[in-house]
């Protein structure tokens, strides 16, 4: 049997989009191998209500563990459960390359005694291996990584696998945890949510980013207003700006910050240093506004405007607002 396991990430009792992406990637492997997709869903009581959406995206079985110890992310109990499941014979396991998945997947791999491919953007199924596309050297080189361990463990880059519906009669299989999840040594004792209603950089279809060219923390209001005008946008920043404390580090995009790939990326007062490009060069459309016509950002931008951001951005915000209304 060539079954594929997918980790269905959730937070606060709700599935994350990354869960559907992992199931979609697992479905494509299972279809190539002629096997089933088994999704693992861990959460507090009531989480089984989320199983249906997993079935709609191609899970044949959803293995559900409901336990208060899974109310927050529980790395030790999660990895123990998944590693035990994998021991019953799976070809592969797919995790999202999110904060949770990046923590969990290597735990599971080490428990199974195999290596893994991280943050993959594409998977080719061969008879004895998965061959995965994985950007290396801050995205300046693309590697094809051969994963021949059993199980083959991969984490998939957020947004690289668009959730595809592939509905089926999903079996929900309640399961018991491996050991007592409340007894884990490592405990998430608090989850501090960012501002409500704010889109995460990884999920926003549009990102408006600002750099040192904005001149002050206060001028970031212009960036936020433009993001508001788009409606479905998140705000990003460069390291120059997060280092100065104008914006939190969580908004930093680049080599040591987040890697993003929105449909539209607007770079305002950003020079386009290689470390910044590392985090956004695969965006769909890139717009740059910079007063220096030789700024490297213009070499990756699809559309550029030369000039003072403080003057241009409010005009752009107004124009976007009008365009959205019409």
């Amino acid at each position, binding site marked *: 049997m060539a079954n594929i396991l997918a980790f269905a990430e959730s937070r606060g009792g709700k599935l994350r989009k990354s869960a559907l992406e992992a199931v979609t990637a697992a479905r494509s492997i299972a279809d190539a191998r002629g096997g089933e997709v088994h999704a693992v869903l861990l959460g507090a009581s009531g989480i089984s209500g989320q199983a249906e959406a997993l079935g709609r995206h191609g899970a044949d079985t959803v293995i559900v563990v409901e336990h208060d110890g899974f109310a*927050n*992310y529980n790395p030790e109990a999660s990895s123990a459960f998944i590693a035990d499941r994998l021991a019953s014979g799976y070809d592969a396991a797919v995790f999202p390359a*999110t*904060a*949770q998945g*990046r*923590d969990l997947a*290597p*735990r599971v*791999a*080490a*428990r199974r005694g195999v*290596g*893994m491919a*991280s943050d993959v953007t594409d998977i080719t199924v061969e008879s004895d291996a998965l061959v995965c596309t994985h*950007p*290396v*050297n801050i995205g*300046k*080189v*693309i*590697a*094809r*990584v*051969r994963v*021949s*361990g059993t199980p083959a463990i991969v984490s998939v880059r957020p947004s690289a696998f668009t959730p595809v519906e592939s509905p089926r009669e999903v079996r929900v299989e309640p399961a018991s945890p491996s050991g007592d999840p409340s007894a884990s*040594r*490592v405990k*998430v*004792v*608090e*989850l*501090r*949510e*960012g501002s409500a209603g704010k889109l995460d*950089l990884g999920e926003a279809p549009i990102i408006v980013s600002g750099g040192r060219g904005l001149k002050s923390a206060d001028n970031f209001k212009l960036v936020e207003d433009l993001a508001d005008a788009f409606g479905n946008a998140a705000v990003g920043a460069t390291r120059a700006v997060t280092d100065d404390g104008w914006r939190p*580090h969580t908004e*930093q995009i680049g*080599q*040591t*910050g987040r890697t993003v790939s929105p449909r*539209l990326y607007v770079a305002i007062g950003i020079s386009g240093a*290689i470390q910044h490009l590392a985090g956004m060069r695969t965006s769909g459309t*890139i*717009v740059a506004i910079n007063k220096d*016509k030789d700024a490297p950002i213009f070499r990756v*931008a*699809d*559309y*550029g*405007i*030369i*000039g003072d951001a403080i*003057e*241009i951005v409010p005009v*752009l915000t107004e*124009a*976007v607002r009008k*365009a959205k209304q019409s």
Partner: protein
Amino acid sequence: MKIAVCIKRVPDMEARFKIAGDGKSVDYTGLKFDMNDFDSWAVEAALQLKEKAGQGEVVIISLGPDAVQETIRKALSMGADRGVQLAAAEIPFDGFAIASALAAELKDGAYDLVFFGKQAPDSANGVVGIMVAELLGYAAVSSINKLELQGTSGTAERAIEGATEVVQFPLPAVLTVDEGLNQARYPSLKGIMAAKKKQIEQKPAQLGAATVSIQAMAMPPERAPGRILGEGAAAVPELVQLLQTEAKVI
């Protein structure tokens, strides 16, 4: 307090990379190498804890060819006490193979804490630290940007999508370090002189079997050349028009 820090020697990411003749590696001849930035923050974290405790030892471990001794020496000049090179002709891509060798070295060391960087920029795997923790049976928290110890336990914070997790853990523990935890110090002249006398022990790396390997490499597709639409606010209407009709993002 006995602390180990595992550091990786990595190529300068500002360089222009060329695929080697074998089609599955990068030609690094002539490029500069240095300590992974995340690892320099890991070294800093270890040094700060030792200084705060007023006693202890910080041991630097790096797996790779003899050139990694230069990187270890840099950590020693920042203030670490001694180094271990796990000698291997090259650094494998498979994080589990690396983790197995590091865990074999760490397991009898009675370390209270073992620090790693969150990720190496060349492999972009971000797995080695967590795998070592599993192999040692240590508690582990990955990608931390805040840390406080209270006796034999600690509290760390990590950024997740749109939120922050506050995590408690007991010692001994493995911690992997994200940007923002601290600012790494530069080696002082005194530190550089002192480091010359510090010991770097060399042992063969007991690499685990690799199940993951690079079979091909390629350069990413170039972005099609873009257009400068004009200067100042006068160019805004054309931009918005293009975003609607050509890019179709509004």
